[in-house]
């Protein structure tokens, strides 16, 4: 049924449909709308789940690690500072091979306090072993969240559904909300591969020497590789029932494009508009939207970009001392291919600044008119800032 939903509520509806059994959460703007609804669903019986009102994000993730180890389906949502506080336990959840699903609303990190969108919080967690999916709109958020449970439980890795603060979390859009029976057909009840059980006492997470430890980590690496394949299977199964598919990446007008934007999150939607205008002017432009960030779909990216001359990577994030993080990833993905486009990096929209079609077109012209990049990343819209030592 089509409903007009906030991005946050699209997440909540998906969690309801996934029949999650234990939810744990700690409030932080702009994540709150997700968990407020879920709390009410647990209270009024819409969901048969326990809602744990813990005293911090750190305890929130710890509680889910405990619950998931007993073999139930779990969920949480957080943002910015909350995700940063969880960091240690993000490694733990993946290391313990627990298929926890979390919605993460991209928020800038303090200081100064800023509640608006910025991807640095989630990208700073890229090495924790979580699958990460960046979503563009409310429908994609709902669909991806439902899919996340199936993918997580197939490969035994946690999944982070990432959505932009406000531009997505607080924006109302029409969203097709599936019926519970339909979702049941797609997502069976959780069947854990291992669990805490007094009838079969085992120790989970014991001391482990260098020999076994490295082998265990390699298993996680293999599971991540597998996740790339399983992501496709999950999408196939979902498309068969719901007729919607997103892909690990989406290539828009890339076939004949000479300059391709690399986007993620809601910037993609804005860029679709800029692209129409550029195409109307006869420019050979395209967009490669990156949805799946971990595992990084390197082969698909190489294939989609092989004919382009240049790419313009839009980063709403920054790794100080290096460059935009998507730009780094793109350079790494492309460098071992014999012929590949020149990588131009642009930092835009930090801390919630608007990324307009005009800005994106400016980036296009900068890219077109430069032979090689002047810098690894160019900060857009910075006019009067002088370095103060």
């Amino acid at each position: 049924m089509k409903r007009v939903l906030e991005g946050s509520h699209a997440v909540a509806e998906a969690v309801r449909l996934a029949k999650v059994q234990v939810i744990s959460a700690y409030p932080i703007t702009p994540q709150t709308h997700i968990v407020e609804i879920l709390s009410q669903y647990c209270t009024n019986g819409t969901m048969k789940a326990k809602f744990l009102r813990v005293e911090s994000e750190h305890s929130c993730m710890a509680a889910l690690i405990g619950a998931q180890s007993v073999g139930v389906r779990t969920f949480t949502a957080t943002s910015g500072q909350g995700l940063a506080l969880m960091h240690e336990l993000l490694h733990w959840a993946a290391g313990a091979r627990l298929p926890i699903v979390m919605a993460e609303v991209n928020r800038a990190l303090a200081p100064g306090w800023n509640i608006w969108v910025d991807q640095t919080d989630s990208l700073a967690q890229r090495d924790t072993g979580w699958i990460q999916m960046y979503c563009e709109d409310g429908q994609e958020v709902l669909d991806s969240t439902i899919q996340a449970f199936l993918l997580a439980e197939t490969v035994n890795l946690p999944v982070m559904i990432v959505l932009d603060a406000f531009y997505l979390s607080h924006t109302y859009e029409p969203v097709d909300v599936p019926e519970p029976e339909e979702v049941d057909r797609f997502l069976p009840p959780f069947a854990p591969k291992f669990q805490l059980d007094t009838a079969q006492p085992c120790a989970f997470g014991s001391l482990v020497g260098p020999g076994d430890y490295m082998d265990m980590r390699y298993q996680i690496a293999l599971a991540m590789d597998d996740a790339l394949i399983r992501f496709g299977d999950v999408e196939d199964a979902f498309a068969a029932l719901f007729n919607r598919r997103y892909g690990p990446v989406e290539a828009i007008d890339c076939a004949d494009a000479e300059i391709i934007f690399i986007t993620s999150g809601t910037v993609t939607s804005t860029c679709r508009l800029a692209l129409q205008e550029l195409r109307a002017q006869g420019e050979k432009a395209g967009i490669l939207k990156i949805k799946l960030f971990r595992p990084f779909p390197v082969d698909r990216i190489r294939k989609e970009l092989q004919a382009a001359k240049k790419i313009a990577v839009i980063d709403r994030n920054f790794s100080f001392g290096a460059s935009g993080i998507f730009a780094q990833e793109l350079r790494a993905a492309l460098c071992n291919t014999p012929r590949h486009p020149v990588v131009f990096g642009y930092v835009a929209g930090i801390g919630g600044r608007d990324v307009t079609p005009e800005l994106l077109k400016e980036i296009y012209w900068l890219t077109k008119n430069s032979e090689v990049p002047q810098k690894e990343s160019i900060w857009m819209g910075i006019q009067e800032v002088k370095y103060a030592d």
Partner: protein
Amino acid sequence: MPTDVLDRELVHSGHVGCPGCGATIAMRFVLKALGEKTIMVLPACCWSVIAGPYPQSALKIPVLHAAFETGGATATGVRAALDMKGDTETTVLTWAGDGGTFDIGFQSLSGAVERDENFIYVCYDNEAYMNTGVQRSSSTPYGAWTTTTTGKDWKKLRKKNIVEALVAHRIPYAATASIAFPEDLLRKAQKAKNMKGSRFLHIYASCPTGWRIPSEMSIKIARMAVQTNIFPLYEVEEGLRYTINYRPKEYLVREYFRLQGRFKHLTEKDLDQIQQMVNEDWELLLRKAGEHV
């Protein structure tokens, strides 16, 4: 005490605890009382090692190793999931050291107790971070040497009173216990098992390695801690009703301190001052128990 409780053994003999390890003795007794329908949450501490390396386990119950500061929260999740599966019978037990309880895990414990999570939290107290090599914690007593309170910088701050902190939460049950008083310890663990809500046991567990005592002195030192009123045995129900379980014969703290290498730098004057502090604390406890005259 029923003999099946006394006879059952849920700790294998092949654990890797140090000789005379009080924490290992404490575990043996508590698991005798709780039985095999128990799931353990084990935050980082000496017991993370004692329990044995992968793929072995020194314990005959399921163990979930957990991040250092998450004892209360991880147990919260385990309990919630068991409840969702309709299993209200299994006991959830968090087993943590003093550092994991008084310091880094205090928030998580406080949160769990404020929510009255239905679980038992045992803190075995060896009065320092022993796993990492005897660094001071907020449970380290006044007067003690540790590797981070050396020379003239021996600890000159009081030990945090963890039971009183939990009593302030109106926790349904909080009790102290000692490896030197096994009947009392077993009774309290069984009592805790038969209650609902958050339950806390603070178990004095000597550490020969960290305290610089011979391993055969482990129980004797633990007994003296009780006999001198340094570690009184008492229990508190609903955060209100205090019961003092053992009447010491007013031994002097001096004897207790003189036997331990960690206190060897203390002067007679220091010991007098410590005696005074112990007396004060005991008076305070008597008053809370309504036994002050």
